[in-house]
């Protein structure tokens, strides 16, 4: 059962927030949705899940258009951490509502996780700390048994131990091969090692769709030092500069080939070293624009 997003477009306040977004997700994937503040990550999740209406495009689950066949919404679960009615409700009340909406709701799993994290079932959620509230949202989403989970900044405000536990829950869910999780987060360090794919959004467009394993095999992050402060053209044309400090330049090359290595050697750097490539580097490489570059320089 594939989730396909086709040419999704959305304008807010006469500004294109999402433009022709297309991608597919299959169960068994952990996908990071990465982008700068206000780029449209939350809007993307809200639009896919029917809370915001798209101006164009479709969301298909196993080939069924969700707008025409809303019954397939049980395959998707997005609980908006910012806009939900939970504050005045108790855990049990919310559980009842989601049980009604998701026929495959796993109450045993829900109860087990609630007990494990010592959340009080009859307490109003407005009395919960930010971390516990976020934790509850994740438990609820996991318990719906929806094959596609959308989590917006899910680890925000959680302490290290809970964060670790939550990540292990999410990884277990995906490892079964029956579910896919899409995570939108600013905290790239948290996504590192968890997601196996990264969708990079820029100006409302999907600019890159990285399979991280392939990317790590192909790409290189190289630190270079030159005699003077002149940046060789090759660094800008073949790679993306992510950091400049004096004469030290750090560049990400997405397609690092032996030919490129030879061309790089021809620029005569006084020092050259390969550094470990992280998701943050990909983020910087894709989303750093001219203004940021000037700042870096």
């Amino acid at each position, binding site marked *: 059962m594939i989730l396909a997003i086709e040419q999704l477009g959305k304008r*807010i*306040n*006469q500004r294109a927030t999402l433009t022709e977004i297309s991608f597919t997700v299959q169960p068994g994937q952990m996908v990071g949705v990465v982008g700068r503040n206000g780029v449209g990550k939350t*809007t993307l999740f*809200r639009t896919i*899940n*029917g*809370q*915001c*209406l798209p101006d164009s495009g479709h969301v298909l689950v196993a080939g069924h258009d969700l707008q025409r066949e*809303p*019954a*397939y*919404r*049980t395959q*998707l*679960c*997005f609980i*908006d951490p910012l*806009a*939900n*009615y939970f*504050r*005045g409700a108790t855990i049990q*009340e919310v559980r*009842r*509502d989601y049980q*009604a*909406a998701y026929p495959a709701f796993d109450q045993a799993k829900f109860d087990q996780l609630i007990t494990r994290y010592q959340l009080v079932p009859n307490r109003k959620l407005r009395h919960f700390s930010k971390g516990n509230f976020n934790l509850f949202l994740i438990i609820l989403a996991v318990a719906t048994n929806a094959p596609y989970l959308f989590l917006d900044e899910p680890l925000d405000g959680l302490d290290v131990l809970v964060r670790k536990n939550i990540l292990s829950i999410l990884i277990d869910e995906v490892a079964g091969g029956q579910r896919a999780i899409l995570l939108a987060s600013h905290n790239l360090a948290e996504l590192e090692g968890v997601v196996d794919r990264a969708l990079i959004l820029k100006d409302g467009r999907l600019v890159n769709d990285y399979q991280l394993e392939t990317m790590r095999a192909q790409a290189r992050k190289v630190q270079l030092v030159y005699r003077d402060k002149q940046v060789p053209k090759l660094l800008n044309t073949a790679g993306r500069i992510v950091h400049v400090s004096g004469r030290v330049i750090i560049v990400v090359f997405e397609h690092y080939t032996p030919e490129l290595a030879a061309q790089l050697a021809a620029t005569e750097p006084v020092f050259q070293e390969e550094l470990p490539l992280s998701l943050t580097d990909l983020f910087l490489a894709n989303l750093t624009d001219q203004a940021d570059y000037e700042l870096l320089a």
Partner: protein
Amino acid sequence: MTKRTIWKLLWRHYRTLLLSVIGIQILVGIREGITVLEYRLIPRGGFTFASVSGWRLAAAALIFFAVGLAVFLMDTSTHFNQYLFSLPVARRKIFRVKMGLIAASLVSGYLLMEVAYGLVINNRLAKYHAYWDWSVAWKLELVQLSMLLALSLLGMTFGLWLGHLLAGVIFGTGFACSLVFAYDALNRLVAAALGVSVNQARWLESIDARYWPGLVLAVGLLWLVSVGLYGLDAWAFDHLSLENDQEFFRFPSLRPVALWFSIIYLMITISCSQFGLGLLQLLTNQYYEVMPLSLGIVMAVLVGYGTWGLGRWFLYRPDHFRRAWTMKKIS
């Protein structure tokens, strides 16, 4: 997801509000019954529920309108729609169940209020040589109930189309109250157009719902209004996109329609009604019968401009107050 499941789900969510409203209506019924007995307001002969209905009707009107307004406004402010719109069911179906639940609760509350009222005075009717006139009572009840449902739908329209809690309450209440003046203004315009007196133009008041033709006409008109409002609300619920939740008006593409409707409505309602003419009389110290037409036109233009500026300010740019009053394009 079955209709029953949605019904149960919505009932759980709204039950506190709806049960409170039913309770209040029953109390109002009992209270009015006691008042009728205390002040001996029962005339001899045929007695209907509508014979004495001041408090009950006022309370019911207030409750029907307030509940209609509150249910949708609350769902916006508490983000309950976020949940509703993610349900695996068409929005239209949710809307139908929601409307059914609200209407059923309001009608039940109204009927229970009438029953409570009837029970309180029933035993004393014989003492006053009065009896229930059922042949008329049900007709008047039907008209009242139809009117109350139309009022409730009007409240829902404001609750659904406006995203701001306070604005929804103020504008909804303002509009509902202004309908009296709009009706008066319309009569005056019709009278002027047909060359008849204003009283002759007030044909709505001559409808007597105690007789079949009047009943059919009154109920037909009220249901026509209700169906129109229902259609409007059903369309709105289907086309709600929640990024506009915090906007004053939740359908940005229809802003020009809302603006021009407000301008025309207020120009007619204020300038052509007893209210506007009375206001003009007060300002110019002249009887409106002898006032020159140009004065009325000036007033209409001023009202139109005022609505233009305020409308553009509210609808388009709350952060550009001064610009809203100019003729420049605003977006």
